């Protein structure tokens, strides 16, 4: 059957390999074997391979539109009752996600050429981005949980390496550590669920798992644990509460990687959760947890974002917040809604981070309190910011407006509280975007922003093209509407969404920025500011609880090891030495007594043996 398929589909396994081979090809420059002509060739190679990946992906989309969804698999490892496959599901959703991922990667790599212009180890950056892209492309296409897990872990590793790109800086060291460990906690829990599923269901193909779930007879406890394990991995990947800590710290990494992380990587994590969604029916607890986590992340993320003074961190909390909404949609079994939100958010957030990156590249500053007056100096960046902000809020008819309208309309009937969560998130996000806009682009110029020209074309080009794409998103949504089937939502829902956005924008316009920055003298408000600015003290809570617990346990084990186990051994040793010293003095030196002792011992030994046998 496979032979009758068109060539682009047969060669689908190449798509993840483009990214990985980009990494391998960059190694000679990254490791300094080739020093002539600088590291640029590695960047060009990666760009070329990513371009090929985008084109290959679009070819496959054309074929799939003609032939319908396809499934390809390659055996990887087989032993006993275990059969692990490399499988690709070529459905339109997966392919659209693939195009999002590869296209974003392409834009980011062009952007990075400008942003990291003077970076010493540019080749290493491109090698890591290639690795990143390969893993993401594989995750979105994979047709089984094993391969998804495999690549998600690779994503964890490459996140660690990308966050730790400037490894000599102290903040980067902790950021890379937290990024890895937080995700790893989620991954280990996911692995537990994966191993259990593999043992119970036999196959790890998503389609087989969906069939298995219909007939599965699981006791409530294993089912609940399974469900919780399955959502833990995506929770870590999507930086959801309480595993959201790493995303804002990860902003210490280079900005082009942050663009990818806030748009494409979180999308990958959510897509895995989407593919697992039918399995969650097993466990009502997991669904409830998903709802709670989504709500807390959506509102908490939006609130914490408002209190941040770091340009990148404030928007990274926004990512946590939007992914919380995606989690809500998934918990309520609305896959298409979740997908649309992922796409709309991914595009707009990437644009936002490009604009922010331009600001940082020009001013070498990402502290909101030191920025101002860039609006007239950097027109393209300002436009990009405005377009991205419009795309993110439910006020103008760009991407997220349709998602919010759809969400509010569907949630209103059954879950009015959740509709409220969506609206409140919209308000808070709009407020935050306006606040930052006023501060960075409208405020009077500060010393660091006085001489700030527009960015070079390598950064401007991807930024402007993405801005156009975001502006065109209503048209795209219209094109794919037959596939999504967005219900036409009522006027009242529209009014609610627009109203909530307007409230956010208005309060954002009206709020006193100068007074806002200085800590409020009104004590409760000051404490609230601190609470949000320090992210609900999550880091301190972790330090005081789980980190202290593990460290204490480790110290305890170590002291048991040193004092008890090793001490016992040493004491036996010294006791035998001491007894030998003592015995040495008690020896008479008479041969006869030695012989007597020997004979007596032999008799006793023989007697005891005879007694044992008899």
């Amino acid at each position, binding site marked *: 059957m496979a032979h009758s398929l068109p060539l682009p589909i047969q060669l689908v396994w190449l798509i993840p390999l483009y990214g990985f081979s980009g990494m391998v090809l960059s190694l000679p420059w990254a*490791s*300094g074997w080739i020093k002539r002509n600088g590291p640029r060739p590695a960047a060009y190679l990666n760009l070329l391979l990513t371009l090929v990946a985008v084109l290959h992906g679009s070819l496959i989309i054309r074929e799939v539109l003609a032939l319908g969804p396809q499934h390809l698999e390659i055996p*990887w*490892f*087989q*032993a*006993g*009752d*275990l059969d692990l496959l490399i499988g690709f599901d070529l459905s339109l959703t997966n392919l659209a996600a693939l195009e999002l991922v590869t296209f974003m990667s392409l834009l980011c790599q062009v952007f990075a050429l400008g942003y990291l212009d003077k970076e*010493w*180890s540019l080749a290493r950056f491109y090698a890591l981005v290639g690795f990143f892209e390969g893993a993401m492309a594989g995750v979105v296409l994979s047709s089984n949980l094993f391969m998804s*897990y*495999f*690549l998600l*872990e*690779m994503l*964890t*590793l490459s996140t660690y*390496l990308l966050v*730790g790109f400037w*490894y*000599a800086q*102290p903040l*980067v*060291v902790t950021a*890379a*550590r937290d990024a*890895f*460990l937080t995700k*790893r*906690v989620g991954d*280990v829990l996911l*692995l*537990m669920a994966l*191993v*259990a599923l*593999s*043992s119970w269901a036999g196959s790890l193909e998503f389609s087989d798992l969906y069939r298995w779930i219909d007939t599965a007879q699981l006791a409530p406890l294993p089912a609940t644990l399974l469900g919780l394990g399955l959502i833990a991995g995506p929770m870590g990947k999507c930086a959801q509460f309480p595993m959201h800590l790493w995303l804002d710290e990860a902003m210490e990494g280079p900005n082009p990687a942050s663009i990818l992380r806030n748009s494409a990587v979180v999308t990958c994590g959510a897509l895995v959760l989407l593919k697992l969604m039918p399995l969650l029916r097993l466990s009502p607890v997991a669904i409830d947890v998903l709802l709670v986590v989504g709500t807390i992340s959506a509102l908490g993320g939006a609130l914490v974002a408002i209190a941040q003074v770091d340009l990148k961190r404030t928007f990274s909390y926004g990512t946590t917040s939007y992914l919380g909404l995606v989690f809500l949609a998934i918990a309520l079994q609305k896959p298409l809604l979740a997908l649309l939100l992922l796409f709309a958010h991914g595009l707009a957030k990437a644009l936002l981070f490009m604009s922010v990156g331009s600001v940082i590249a020009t001013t070498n500053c990402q502290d909101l309190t030191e920025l101002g007056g860039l609006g007239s100096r950097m027109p393209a960046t300002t436009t990009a910011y405005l377009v991205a902000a419009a795309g993110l809020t439910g006020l103008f008819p760009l991407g997220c407006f349709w998602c919010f309208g759809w969400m509010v309309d569907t949630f209103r009937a059954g879950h009015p509280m959740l509709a409220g969560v969506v609206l409140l998130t919209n308000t808070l996000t709009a407020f935050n975007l306006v606040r930052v806009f006023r501060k960075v682009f409208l405020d009077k110029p500060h010393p660091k922003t006085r001489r700030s020209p527009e960015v070079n074309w390598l950064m401007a080009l991807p930024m402007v093209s993405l801005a156009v794409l975001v502006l065109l998103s209503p048209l795209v949504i219209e094109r794919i509407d037959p596939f999504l089937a967005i219900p036409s939502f009522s006027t009242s829902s529209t009014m609610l969404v627009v109203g909530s956005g307007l409230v956010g924008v208005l309060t954002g316009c009206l709020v006193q920025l100068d007074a806002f920055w200085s800590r409020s003298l009104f004590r409760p408000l000051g404490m609230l500011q601190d609470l949000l600015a320090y992210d609900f003290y999550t880091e301190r809570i972790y330090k005081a609880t789980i980190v202290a617990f*593990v*460290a204490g*346990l*480790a*110290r*305890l*084990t*170590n002291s048991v*090891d040193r004092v008890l*186990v*090793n001490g016992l*051994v040493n004491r036996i*040793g010294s006791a035998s030495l001491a007894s030998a010293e003592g015995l040495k003095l008690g020896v008479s030196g008479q041969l006869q007594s030695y012989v007597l002792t020997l004979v007596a011992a032999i008799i006793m030994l023989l007697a005891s043996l005879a007694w044992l046998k008899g």
Partner: protein
Amino acid sequence: MLSLLLLIPFLGAFVLLLSPSNPPPGRMRAIAITTLALQLLWSLRVLLAFDPHQGGMQLQDSLSWVPMIGLDYRLGIDGLSLPLVLMNGALTLVSAVCTRDISQRPRIYFALLLLISGAVNGAFLAENLLLFFLFYELELIPLWLLISIWGGTERAYAATKFLIFTAISGVLILGAFLGLALFTGTVDFSLTPIVSERLSMGSQLVLLVSLLIGFGIKIPLVPFHTWLPDAHTQASSPVSVLLAGVLLKLGTYGLLRFCLGLFPQAWALVAPWLAIWAAVSVLYGSLAAIAQRDMKRMVAYSSVGHMGMILLAAAAATPVSLLGAVFQMVSHGLISALLFLLVGIVYRKTGTRDLEVLRGLLNPERGLPFTGTLMILGVMASAGLPGMAGFISEFLVFRGSIGVFPLATLLCMLGSGLTAVYFLLLVNRAYFGRMAITPPSEDPSADARLDIRLSGVALRETLPALGISLAVVGLGLVPAGLGWLSETTATAMAELPALLLAASHGGLG
């Protein structure tokens, strides 16, 4: 055919020991490397002749030696021992290649290395209990000498501790083998599984426990592990490679071959306890590793943790878990050898392994960037990141065991998660940050050295580590090769208890 695997290294050792005059150390190293390369080539030849679809022993060499006491010279190979023989060949070669500028008694050093390699081959190939024991003991004294002559400052303590522990292990194993003869009243030391008709369950349990403790010391399992960190920290890095990569595998090999293979019925009885023991061992090793400051000690404790997983796999004794045990032996051998090599490079260049002292070694111009890169790869492999050998091994172990011992498996997975914690701390402390070497002192700001410039690492120094890294990645990406070699044997071993049960009830007709 298999006898050559013993003959080549032993002959090499004799040539070295008996060579007239006093050849320069370089030539002795060349002789040793040539011999070991020959041995590796011959093991590859054995690999070609090996038929992976047969479950039992193959390519047997047999010779009656001392029939009165049941000591036969019988060698055979199967899917369990073949990967280990290959790894022994490769890693001994690596440790000989890594031994440079040895000034003290090179002749004895290389001869002992060859002797160990041959003895380990013999232990993996022996098809007779007494023969196994002979080789098991034969490897012990050379290693003791390697630690106590070429070791660090506290080598006498570490070497003696190693000797006493391992000697007790040997005594227990010999006791069990002799006890077998005593209880059954025959001098049959072949590898036939013992069924309850031949021996009562009580006696089987006594013998099994004695064997378990014997091999448990060698693996090592908590609480018999305390010789390992000391031995590793005092041994030179080639010896550490050998110890972690090859010699510890004797313990797990014995666990599978003699405990599970000889007493399948008694094994099934104690398996739940063994699973708990495994979980304790894994968690204990991982937690103790977190608290270590010495990189080598940390890697040594991680060995305790990772070897515990093999006990879990053996306790579960399903086809997948036993295959996982073989995988874990190979991948632990490769990964820990890699880590010890890299720590050795760091120690040679900086003079310390203390995590409180070292900072920022990844520095591209003045530090050890390439060693650091390989180190990141090594620790990630050890932490079980996919794409490298550690992941597929642990996955197979967990997947094979979870159906039998869910709780113990979950605890072991927790331990595997802790691996990421301590190894990440290692990389973060020693390799990230601003480069500095800060010896512990009253006034760190004054004594810290920020202006260090470490001498560059030549390619030939990292070449062995690079080779092992490629093997680690290769095994992680294409595990099917090793699976193909060992699957039939693992399945046969897993089905042993059921087969025996059926046979004793006449089910096989």
